[in-house]
């Protein structure tokens, strides 16, 4: 499903070159629910951005589904992102002047899906996150938990191969966080959705079968790096 091979990411800064990721290897099989934890600055978000093809690695290759992304053009990468990756952000990133429905429709627009079909798919995605009734509301009329659910519906509406979540519960109270986490586990268990989630919250991480810990730009612990997974990588 997802294979990162020998990924390094360096940034040019005023003090010279900063190495954020150093030779990271990671494989995620289809249907995995994986938490990515680690201290601030350990490289979690950079790894997530690279996985979501929002950024390019300085070195190494990324394979998502059947796409080897290293050699793709910017537009091709945008298309792969649109088809294979769903994003959920800590701060929701909903467009304030769009209704819930319009926000959820957005990824489908860039796929060229017709308006009527978009509405149908968005309605079904909103129903799945339990917001079927709120499709005409604007983001500022929703609670934090509801906004994040809209964001999840938006990420899932295009039926991605992998869902990437960057601290999805970071802005929510524990009850909402729990609800959001339940949604992730439900989609993972019921639909076999692959999820990679950056989180600081240990209770959230504990609910993921696989937990990866990062430190100083490398993976220091991975409870699933068992021989059978490594075999799949090869």
């Amino acid at each position: 499903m997802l294979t990162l091979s020998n990924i390094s990411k360096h940034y040019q800064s005023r003090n010279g070159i900063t190495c954020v990721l150093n030779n990271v290897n990671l494989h995620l099989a289809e249907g995995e629910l994986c938490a990515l934890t680690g201290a601030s600055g350990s490289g979690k978000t950079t790894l997530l951005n690279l996985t979501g093809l929002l950024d390019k690695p300085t070195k190494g290759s990324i394979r998502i589904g059947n796409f080897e992304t290293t050699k793709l053009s910017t537009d091709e990468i945008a298309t792969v992102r649109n088809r294979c990756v769903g994003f959920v952000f800590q701060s929701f990133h909903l467009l304030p002047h769009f209704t819930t429905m319009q926000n959820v429709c957005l990824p489908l627009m860039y796929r060229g899906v017709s308006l009527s079909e978009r509405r149908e798919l968005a309605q079904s995605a909103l129903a799945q996150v339990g917001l079927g009734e709120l499709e005409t509301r604007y983001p500022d009329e929703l609670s934090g938990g509801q906004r994040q659910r809209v964001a999840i519906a938006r990420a899932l509406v295009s039926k991605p191969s992998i869902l990437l979540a960057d601290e999805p519960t970071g802005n929510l109270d524990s009850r909402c966080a729990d609800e959001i986490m339940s949604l992730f586990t439900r989609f993972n268990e019921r639909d076999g959705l692959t999820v990679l989630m950056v989180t600081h919250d240990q209770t959230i991480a504990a609910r993921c079968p696989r937990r990866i810990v990062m430190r100083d730009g490398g993976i220091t612990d991975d409870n699933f790096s068992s021989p059978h997974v490594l075999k799949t990588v090869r």
Partner: protein
Amino acid sequence: MADSIFLEILRESAGNIRSMKARSVMALIGIAIGTAAVIAMLHVGYNARLTALQQFEKMGTDLANVLPGTRQNGFTDLTEARLNEFALSHASITEIAAAIRINAEITTLRTKISAVGFAVSDRFLSILRAHLDNGRVFSPLDQDAPYVIIGSKVAMKISAGSTSPIALGDQIQIGDKILTTIGVLKPSPANLIFRIDLDNAVLVPIKGARHLGVTQEISAILVRFSGAEDSAEATKLIYQEIGSEVSIQTAQQLIAGVEEQMRIYSSLLLAIGSVSLVVGGVGIMNVMLMNVVERRQEIGLRQALGARRKDIRNMFLIEALIVSGIGSAVGIVIGFLAAWAFAQMSGWQFTPSPFALPLGAFMAATVGLFFGSFPAMRASKLDPVAALRSI
């Protein structure tokens, strides 16, 4: 698929117009004022040209005014008979008339009236297409009889200065001579080719010029060709007959002059239009650049959701085009109304210029595309990670 995405972006951007910010409205007003200025001037210029050409059409475009120019001794050696003979022998010349210009001071009971006097040959009124309100024109039989035909305004002034309105057969005093009125002219527009204002003129037969105390020297020759297309041929004939030193002014030359003036006017219009375009365009660019900065997160999000660079670029370009399009549409309407009002005040018949709509659309497209391109390119090249991170 690509087309359908473009259409979707177009639809989305059009829908966003309702949430247009005050600064976009200001940019829109800038474009509207610029376009209105250009469109108004375009209509006014077009109507000025039409009005001038209509005047020429009334007079006829087959006229020529022959003046002595640098000819030695002027037209002293020319006689009416010789000119008539010349016209008769050439098919390209239909009519010819000679005129001697004189100053005429008319004395009425109460006042003195200054008028322009002309001693003219028979065909003079026919060439000018002037019509009589009353009475008759000169005939060859009149010879040097002390007869006078008076212009409409002169008639009015004389009537105002006398006890009763002027009638045929009335005698009027011009200088120290007494002349008999045989005709009164209908009002007619000033003739631009011969520069004669018949309304303020008094006419006497050419042979009677001496009644007004002047020599017989012809000061101008009026010619009507058999058709506007014969003017070159006829001009050549006149040069041969009268001499190459004379100055010939044809209606077509004057029309060409008007056209040339309009061309200069159009260049001026283009220059003013360009300045307003640039000012309006910079306004749009400014607004769009601010939009790009303000909407960095949105751009990053759209990129994360699968928008390609060209999708982002198109989104901002379409928004710039919509702002400039609405601005231009408003400008076209304001420009039209301003020109219409100007035409009403000038007493012109208003005919909208056919170039206004295409020019307005062209201005909108140019401003939108040219000044929207830079912000749109900038937006499309944003780094998604940096854009998403920005607050």
